[in-house]
């Protein structure tokens, strides 16, 4: 039996710029139940142009790890329904996108919430749940 080399190969990583936006359906879900599945589904995703997805070998529904020095999350890829030129991906403003935002404010009290650079790669891991984000804080509390 041959060795499955693919198993040991890391999926390629691509650098990506991300900006955040607001989505009325996500806001509605948050008002109703911020711990519910709808809020999670509408938040834990990244919207990309068809071009960028093709370049990175991603399909709608794929799970990707989006990571930088500030943190790392796993979210679902969605294809933008718009005619995007590419180069920038979009995430709904949420606790998930906030994991990736730098706290470098130059002392001015305003982080760059809408200007994120991260690495993106295809993964098989589960989508980061709100519960796991909460778990992170609970652990901090125990330290």
């Amino acid at each position, binding site marked *: 039996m041959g060795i499955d080399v693919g198993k040991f190969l890391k999926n390629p990583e691509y650098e990506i710029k991300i900006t955040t936006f607001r989505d009325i359906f996500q806001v509605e879900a948050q008002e109703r139940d911020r711990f519910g599945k709808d809020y999670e589904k509408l938040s834990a995703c990244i919207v990309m142009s068809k071009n960028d997805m093709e370049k990175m070998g991603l399909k709608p529904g794929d799970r990707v790890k989006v990571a930088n020095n500030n943190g790392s999350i796993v979210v679902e890829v969605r294809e933008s329904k718009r005619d995007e030129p590419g180069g920038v991906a979009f995430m709904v403003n949420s606790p998930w996108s906030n994991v990736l935002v730098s706290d470098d404010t130059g002392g001015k009290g305003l982080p760059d919430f809408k200007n994120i650079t991260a690495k993106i790669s295809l993964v098989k891991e589960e989508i980061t749940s709100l519960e796991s984000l909460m778990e992170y*804080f609970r652990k901090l509390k125990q330290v």
Partner: protein
Amino acid sequence: MSTCPGCALLCDDIEVVVESGRIKETRNACRRGAARIKGCINRLAPTIDQKPSDIESAIKKAAGILKDSKSPMLFGFSNSTCEAQVKGIQLAKKLGAMIDDTSSFCQGLLIEKILQKKFRTCTLEDVRNKADVLVYWGSDAQDSQPRHLSRFSYFPRGESRQRGYEEDRIAIAIDVRESNTAKICKGHFYRIQPKGDREFILALIDALSGKVPAYEPKKILELAAILKKAEFGVIFVGIGLTYSIKEDFDILVSLADKLPNFQIMPMVGHYNMRGFNENLFKETGFVNRVRFHDTAVHDDKYSIIEALREKSIDALLVAGSDPLSSLTRSLIRHLASIPVICIDPCVTMTSKIAAVTIPCAVSGVESGGTAVRMDGKKIGLSKIIESDYLTDEELLVRLMGAL
């Protein structure tokens, strides 16, 4: 008719069908507003150290935490009535505490300049009656203030705009993303790169000054021509623009100077963020980031962001806000190491790690009061249904009493 506390548009034409003391249906409200009025499914309960308690004990415990604190901060208030905000400011004064609100990392910079009269501004009724050129800049009203275009700006008829969007009004979107608002601004969507607003403003200033702009000259000159022809133009400044030019806000003042027929309006999300800014401004001359000593001192280090970064607070009272959800993860580490008091109608991420939780009524649904619309107009809030929950105003008064 009731007022919707869903966003700072404070729509006052909402019909609510109440059956047996419960909200059955809303009419006229958008999705966001209907969801706010119908309420969350997880109501907060009083707790101490995450264990069930009662309101009185929770208030006593909260007062104890604040009394023991050498450097407390009060934060939130954008979802509170003006009456509760005034009490919050009084409490901060009494404690010698820092006080800050969500505008600190939202539209505070812009609202401060508006209150200082650095920009011409107008009411939403002026927009409806007079505006012919509407510029949504870094603002997706359709998703954030969903009835903005239909109640006030693009679609309605107005005194001097009988033919609304069909003939009398032009809507323009300048954004990084082709938002739902940009989709409506057909043919007038200007896409910019993230952080590209500064370059765009400078090019536009050049074009308005009769120079050929260095950046996308054809598009910028075409836009400048539309803006110059406006009889009553409005730039709706969204959070996208504010974040992008935060270090250099005066370039927006320079642009406004070049556009004498234009007004500037902040696009505010939380229903009474502007109310907090106005109330604190009236008391101290500043819109946020204040510490009360003998006098009120304003400094960036009194912003919630810097206070958490510098670990300069040792207790935090949060009213109607969820910093655990809305701040960056790297910043909230300090939150885990200090006692947090959370006053909110609903369970939030912050309430789940709070030392004390105190439930309150949903303002504008279970209690009335006043709030300030995004354009500065005071609007009355309605009590739509009865509830046993105390208002955040009453809770803050009791907390002050317990000190």
